[in-house]
């Protein structure tokens, strides 16, 4: 008989913890899951309290009365658990009054059967004495197994979304879900033992005893893991929101190429509405065979011009696979590339203008200037020719700028820094044979983006062309720094004027504050496209130092990674 006080003591602890946890959860309203958790904990406390009353009762009638009332708590727990799980994991669209009523039908019927003593729930109730303890022995009727199965079903239903969080990247979510699952598993396991007659006292269901573990677990989830302080409930909606509000059109097809989902943009570019498109074959909605994924084996890209808005889309079909890597559908996304295509066209035309038309016209100007030149006007003719040459150079740089941005769209192509610098030096030496250009040796193992080619060439040229001395000198120093490299191009010329440097550092030009050419802008843009930057400084005793700081790349064919984290200045 010592057993009863111990059992009652444990049950009292269960009630105390459960009530405290319920009140703490109550405070968190209207956080998703707070109210269902209160319901669940109230059910646990109810079950435990009425088990104590049952144990304290002496007669069969009293025991049956308390045992029947206990069912209110028993059936509340799985409903509370399922609703909690749905709300907490962001599936609150299922926690609407009509669904709650639907979910509560079987539990309500059970309570009615219990309170009316319906034989569907229990066919017989007798009083048995086990180790001096008077216990109720009841023969379950068919409905008992219905509610048992239903309870376990809801338990499982509630556990599945939480199991998903166990593998979540977020440590708090893992802790929360683990604590919650312990909370539901403990009484679940003890109830299984009871149903299998594997408990020491066959007439005594030890489930409420396990509620003490549940209470501690829920209390831990509430306090230690901030159950309602940090909730995963926005996640499913955020994904849905992203799908619906994304600027790109998106259509989901199943394995038979029927449309099963679509966002507004996706449906609009196909000239329909999502609700009209759903369930229809993709071929029927878009009579364009090229859109239908062919083999489903790879992500495919193609262009599609919508007849409804006359815009051009870059279409990507991405496979959706099951756990066996079998294709079960596709996500077809439509990225509007109309503006990009127009820009490309502009680039092509401008490229031709800069490459061909302007060069032709400057050549014509130079030729006529030569023809008109005589002894008196030779100086004027030379000036005209020089001016035409500068126009040609400007056109060349403009063309290089366009090509630079075209290159920038492509993935970074690693190239040896030594070869880039040597090419630049060679080009400048060809134009300025008197220039003295030096660079450091032993740079073979440093690779950088190919877009830096015009950067170095322009900066070297810039150091030479503005130097009025007879032997302009440029020195190139390279300083590797982990995953980054700094290239310093120092000259002994007049230096870079403030009016040239300020717009570059500011990033904008105005009609009153602007540079004189394109070379330095080209260097800045090229370095930024390579993931780096350009800084300008003064050289001693005269001249300028331009520093290009860019990430080091891994050469093609070699394994490794590219760091985009810039080294600190003190390094």
């Amino acid at each position, binding site marked *: 008989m010592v057993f009863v006080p111990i059992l009652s003591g444990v049950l009292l602890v269960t009630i*105390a913890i459960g*009530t405290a*946890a319920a009140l703490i959860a109550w405070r968190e309203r209207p956080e998703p899951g707070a109210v269902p958790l209160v319901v669940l904990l109230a059910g646990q406390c109810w079950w435990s309290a009425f088990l104590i*009353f049952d144990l*304290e009762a002496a007669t069969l009638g009293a025991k049956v009365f308390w045992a029947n009332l206990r069912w209110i708590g028993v059936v509340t727990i799985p409903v509370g658990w399922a609703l909690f799980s749905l709300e907490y994991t962001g599936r609150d669209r299922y926690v609407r009054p009509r669904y709650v009523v639907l979910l509560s039908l079987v539990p309500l019927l059970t309570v009615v059967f219990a309170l009316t003593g319906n034989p569907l729930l229990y066919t017989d109730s007798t009083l048995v004495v086990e180790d001096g303890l008077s216990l109720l022995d009841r023969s379950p009727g068919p409905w008992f197994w219905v509610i048992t199965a239903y309870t376990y079903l809801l338990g499982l239903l509630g556990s599945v979304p939480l199991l998903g969080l166990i593998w979540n990247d977020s440590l708090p979510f893992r802790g929360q879900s683990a604590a919650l699952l312990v909370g539901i598993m403990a009484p679940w396991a003890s109830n299984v033992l009871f149903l299998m007659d594997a408990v020491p006292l066959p007439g005594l269901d030890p489930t409420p005893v396990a509620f003490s573990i549940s209470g501690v677990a829920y209390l831990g989830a509430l306090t230690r893991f901030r159950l309602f302080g940090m909730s995963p409930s926005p996640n499913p909606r955020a994904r849905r929101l992203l799908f619906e509000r994304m600027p790109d059109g998106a259509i989901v097809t199943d394995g038979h190429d029927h449309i099963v989902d679509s966002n507004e943009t996706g449906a609009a570019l196909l000239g329909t509405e999502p609700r009209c498109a759903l369930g229809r074959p993709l071929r029927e909605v878009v009579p364009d065979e090229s859109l239908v994924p062919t083999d489903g084996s790879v992500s495919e890209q193609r262009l599609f011009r919508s007849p409804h808005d006359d815009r051009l889309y870059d279409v990507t079909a991405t496979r959706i696979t099951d756990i066996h890597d079998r294709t079960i559908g596709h996500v077809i996304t439509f990225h509007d590339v109309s503006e990009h295509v127009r820009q490309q066209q502009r680039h092509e035309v401008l490229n031709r203008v800069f490459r061909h038309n302007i060069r032709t016209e400057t050549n014509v100007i130079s030729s006529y200037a030569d023809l008109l030149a005589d002894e008196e006007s030779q100086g004027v003719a030379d000036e005209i020719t020089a001016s035409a040459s500068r126009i040609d150079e400007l056109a060349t740089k403009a063309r290089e700028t366009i090509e630079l941005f075209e290159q920038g769209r492509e993935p970074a192509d690693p190239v040896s820094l030594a070869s880039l610098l040597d090419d630049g030096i060679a080009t400048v030496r060809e134009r300025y044979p008197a220039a003295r250009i030096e660079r450091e040796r032993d740079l073979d193992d440093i690779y950088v983006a190919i877009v830096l080619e015009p950067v170095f060439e322009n900066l070297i040229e810039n150091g030479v062309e503005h130097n009025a001395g007879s032997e302009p000198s440029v020195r190139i120093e390279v300083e590797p720094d982990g995953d980054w490299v700094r290239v310093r191009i120092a000259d002994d010329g007049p230096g870079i004027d403030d009016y040239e440097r300020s717009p570059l550092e500011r990033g904008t030009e105005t009609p009153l504050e602007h540079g004189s050419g394109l070379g330095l802008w080209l260097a800045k843009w090229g370095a930024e496209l390579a993931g780096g930057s350009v800084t300008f400084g003064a050289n001693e005793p005269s001249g300028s130092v331009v520093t290009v700081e860019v990430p080091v790349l891994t050469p093609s064919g070699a394994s490794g990674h590219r760091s985009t984290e810039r080294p600190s200045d003190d390094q």
Partner: protein
Amino acid sequence: MSRRNYTLADEGSATAVLLGAVLARLPSSSKRAWNALVYSSAYLSLIAMAEVVVVSVLLSLPPSPAAIVVGLIVFAVYTNDRLADADTDAVSNPEQAAFVKRHRDVLYVSASVAYGLAVALSVLGGPVALAITLFPGALWVCYATDWIPGTGAHVRRLKDVFLVNTTVVALAWAVTLTFLPLAFADDVVTTPTLVVFAYFFLRVFTNTEIPNVRDVEGDRAIGVLTIPVVVGVDRTRWILLGIDCGTAALVVLAVHAGCVPAQLALALLAGIAYSIGVTSLLGRSENARLLAKAAECEYLVVFLVVALIVVFI
């Protein structure tokens, strides 16, 4: 359910100056303990426990955990009430509001654990004791919050409804104080039980309205209707004195009918006499906070007299 409580350390009174001087001489740990006792409503729990002892003696009930359960309930409910009203109390009782805001989480968890323990202990008294323990909590939800669970609907909280507010507080106290020890003793409701219930109902009603006299301007400003707001301070004093006299008449009648032993009735009458003294100062004393606190001490007077009677007679 709030009997409004003010601390002896309230600013701007001679008592505050005196108490401040006393506290300044105490070690910091003692000061903290004093603040916790006063601001957290723990002292009200002690008063409530004393009241349960008085009830048990009046009804000749055996000792039970009822006093502890009531103490825990009072702590939980009043702590929650102070948490709920921390913002509005910031004007009328800044020190208490600051204490409550500073220890918000600890107080809430403590109150939750206290109520959990109260519910668990009440199960030992059977289903009736459990129901009585849950009663003040449920009533507090209706009293202090304007939210109906599950519907999202907001309704006017009982705390803001004229007369209902005081009646609810008095009812919750009287039911818990009277019937919980009875439930633990598994005893039946008799005429003496109803007399004790009526006595505590009337006492709590009076003590709940006394602090409202000081808050008459503030309550009027925020639209809370209390007796002093509706009928004025002078009439309130007369109404409360009338209730005091009515309670005294009830006690005399109960003694005459043999429902309450004459010796114990002396203790109740001593408490009423004390209350008449406090009530008669309403609107006449400058220190209304002290009056409110003094009114709460009525139960300690009754407890002490009962203790003296039990020991010496």
